């Protein structure tokens, strides 16, 4: 095996069955599961072609932000009552119902914003990626499924290209870029 930067072999397949067969063949070549992925125009069930076993943890960030939002709402109302006390006949300075409402909305607001930010980070979405080439093939919009394997250049790369071609892959090529 020749040492060097890992490359990505991409092959286009006509349907899920063909792509699944190719992925099985690649796994038999001891390509680790985390080095395989698909690019498709529809979400494929996990395990149909490849399986992603990495845990998804960002919902906890949403929960944390929700708590921060609730506390901020509570602080906003309670501190306001203390700093600018409004004396109204028969009414307490600290009123609980508004604090509940503002805290609730504060919590939901923070959770919504956190879902966007944490979701973007977890998915790896960024409007600008200067200097980075991401692996992609727009022919997925014609119904193709792109099977991608991160491989070491040299023997493994050649073997994976041949396996994908033998499994019916079209436009099989090795590229430099990120999966």
């Amino acid at each position, binding site marked *: 095996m020749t040492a060097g930067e890992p490359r990505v072999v991409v092959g286009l397949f006509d349907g899920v069955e063909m792509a699944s067969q190719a992925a099985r063949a690649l796994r038999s070549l001891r390509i680790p599961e985390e080095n395989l*992925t698909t690019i498709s125009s529809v979400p494929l*069930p996990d395990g149909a072609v490849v399986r992603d076993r990495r845990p998804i943890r960002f919902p906890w960030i949403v929960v944390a932000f929700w708590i921060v939002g609730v506390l901020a709402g509570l602080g906003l109302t309670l501190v306001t009552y203390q700093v600018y006390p409004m004396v109204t006949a028969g009414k307490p300075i600290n009123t609980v119902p*508004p604090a509940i409402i503002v805290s609730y909305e504060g919590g939901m607001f923070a*959770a919504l914003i956190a*879902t966007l930010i944490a979701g973007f980070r977890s998915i790896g*979405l960024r*409007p600008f990626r200067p200097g980075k080439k*991401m692996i992609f093939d727009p022919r997925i*919009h014609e119904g193709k499924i792109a099977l*991608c394997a991160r491989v070491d250049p040299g023997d493994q790369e050649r073997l994976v290209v041949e396996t994908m071609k033998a499994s019916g892959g079209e436009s099989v090529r090795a590229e430099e870029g990120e999966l």
Partner: protein
Amino acid sequence: MKSENHLSRLDESRLYEELSRSNLPPTKRWYAGTGALLLAVLLAVAIFTYMMLTGLGVTGLNRPVMWGVMIILFVFWVGLSHSGTLISAILRLTRATWRAPVLRGAEAMTALALMVGGLYPLMHLGRNWRFYYILPYPSERQLWPNFRSPLLWDAVAITTYLTGSLLFLYFGMIPDLALARDHAVGWRKKLYTFLAAGFRGTHAERRRYHVASTIFAVLIIPVAVSVHSIVSWDFAMAMVPGWHSTIFAPYFVAGAIYSGIAGVISVMVVLRRAFRLEKVLTADHFDNLGKLLLTFTLVWGYFYFSDYLTTWYSQFPEDWEVIHSYFGHYFPLFATLVCCNFLIPFPLLCLRKVRRSIPALFAVSLVVNVGMFTERAQIVVPSLARRNDPSIWGTYFPTWVEISFIIGSIAMFALIYVLFSKLFPVVAVSDVKEQLFHTTDRTVGGANLSTVVRGEGEEGGREP
């Protein structure tokens, strides 16, 4: 299913063409229509400027009726906005198989109706240039807003809901923006590339995207419910006859969903016609929406009756005077709302023929929205006109200024919607594709049926 109406017969590239017709270059008719809407909006803005310079005296507002058309429009548009995101979130979570073509149009309706509705409390302020007094920030005024005021709760709730609805709309559009990016050229390509944020559709991306979308849907439902509850508390927290009711929050939410579903139907019919989406939005979709509308006709009827039953039974004098006015001075309002919200839609929506006839369902949805506007007017005006002290009883009728705001609000909503649909995919193309991916034809005896294949849970598949 008739083969000519079956989208899966189309190949994927043609599918995109079919579903993104709204993004085609504008025609002369489009320019004419958009120009007319823009003119109407500009006219309303000019009249608003006149009102701002002259004062609220140019409206029909006067003691004791200090809330009029602007508050009615606020409640109406916030109500209309209610259903889009809510329907979309519920359909996403329950994975309703017919949801795909309806989602985007409904979500857009929410965000855009809320933008229109949110303007009216600001317009109603009087000294509009001081609207920023509602923001809690350390200013030279040395005074923070009064959180005891339900109007401030409105500002908080609407900000949350508008932000949430816009994020929900945008997040749901990301796969479609990626699709549009790969088909577009010129400035559109740049715009879609930026907004798609590098989404490619890898397996890991889609798995995480699904989780984030589900969280959005879960979060937006309680926000949607809270926002109209808080709008209802603008009224219910006041010791005004007809308003001070514990049932107001659920009653408002039910009414908002009701008018929202009617709004979704109206918008869907217009989109179907304008962008020739007959293959996407079929009679089945309208039948399902019609059933939802029928359900909420009954729910609304139940709440309306429950709200008045206690007053009717107890006959407390101040509340009873308000009810009396419904059969006197405000009878046209009352009769219109009962007819348009219940007596006309209920029997019609029971008929399958009506639900599956798109023009008939469109007409019913418009009738319901007229009814819901009237209902908002009936909530706002008679209670103020017949307040506790008979010596201050009065009447209210909108002036030409306020009527122009009604027209302006409709034109503004239509204008923003037209611009949105020209710029962004108005049908959730990726969701339609996903639906087709999971749909297969199956023959049972002599019948050919469309069958939906679904995995268990969000992951879809199980370990072999």
